[in-house]
């Protein structure tokens, strides 16, 4: 991969750009990431009902956090899109709040560590996005709808049930089925 041709469109490309931002504080790499991700984070904020100006501001804040925390990004643990999604999610939840969202601390001595993962599986984290995207296409409309409402409408299970006029148990079982399907696809890929 040569300098000019790296694109944030793929997980590999975005990950290489992240590495340059982390190691060399590379502004050009950051600019590419910004142009790709900021408009998507803004769209995510808007979908969740955030007002236009605040959505813009939260997207800026998200990308500034990407710059600041780039040295902590670990490509063996998450794809850049996933990492940026979690930053955006937490900034939105924590906006105007004194107490921050409860998150585990990976450096907590009380954390029960992961079992040793074979090196191959870790590399696959970047490709996993494609497997998940494919699996999501195989969800039926009902399952896809509850997943979308969970991520993009900030809805609790009971709020989804109300909106779709379904029993709570049905919403839960659709989420469970959707998740099982995706897990199965990811599991197959790692075989």
């Amino acid at each position, binding site marked *: 991969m040569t300098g000019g041709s790296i694109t944030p469109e793929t997980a590999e490309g975005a990950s290489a750009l992240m590495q340059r931002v982390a190691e060399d504080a590379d502004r050009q790499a950051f600019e590419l990431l910004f142009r790709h*991700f900021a408009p998507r*984070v*803004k769209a995510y904020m808007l979908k969740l009902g955030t007002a236009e100006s605040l959505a813009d501001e939260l997207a800026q804040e998200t990308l500034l956090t990407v710059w600041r925390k780039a040295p902590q990004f670990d490509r063996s643990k998450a794809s850049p899109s996933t990492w940026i999604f979690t930053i955006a999610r937490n900034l939105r939840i924590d906006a105007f709040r004194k107490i921050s*969202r409860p998150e585990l601390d990976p450096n*907590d001595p*009380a954390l*029960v560590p*992961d079992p040793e993962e074979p090196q191959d599986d870790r590399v696959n984290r970047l490709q996993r996005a494609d497997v998940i995207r494919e699996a999501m296409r195989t969800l039926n409309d009902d399952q896809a709808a509850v997943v979308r409402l*969970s991520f993009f409408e900030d809805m609790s299970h009971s709020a989804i049930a109300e909106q779709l006029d379904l029993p709570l148990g049905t919403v839960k079982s659709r989420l469970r089925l959707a998740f099982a399907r995706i897990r199965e696809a*990811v599991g197959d890929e790692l075989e």
Partner: protein
Amino acid sequence: MTVRHHLTDETLLSYAAGDLDDATSLVVASHLALCPVCRADVDMAEDIGGVMLDDVVPVSMSDDALAHVLARAETSSRDPEQPVEMAASKPAGGYVFPEPLRSRIGGDLASVKWRRIGPGVQQYVLPCRDDASQARLLRIAGGQGVLQHGHTGEEFTLVLAGGFSDGDQAFARGDVEWADQDIVHRPIADDGDGCVCLAVTSGPLQFFDFVGKIVQRFVRI
């Protein structure tokens, strides 16, 4: 230690999506610290969020957004790669409370200001940032139990020390028991040291006997 009672997939998915209230997020995150299995599932659910972020139709940023962020990046310090681990702060026996619970309480088990709410039962109500659910620590003496109760919402009980049994099920450190309006139960702490747990409820409990009702009036369980 292997966790045997996990959180449900739909709860993990909602945590990853950012839909859970504060108290429920606290019990989920505390379980995640003790359970690599559920942690892997949340990782995967967050990947779903990443894919959805990738596939969303982008919305133009304001004209000066990039310049703005670059200017702020210029002056902002960057976080180090490895947060400094303060070995001295780790007690010899290890922490009873994992993060983020420890920070919320402002210390480990020894710093909890317990309040007695019944025979062999003490509680400490945790500060939360919304009131959709309530989080409390419960310390139950060996062989004692919380009075038999039903639920008006959901209840998550995470064991942090010792253990309890409920019917024929046993719960130890890291295990979560989940209950809702269809379940009436009476958890009993294990003999000996009893049990410390984090209980999160989204509605008031329902006690069926006179004593429970009186207790409830005073402690607002």
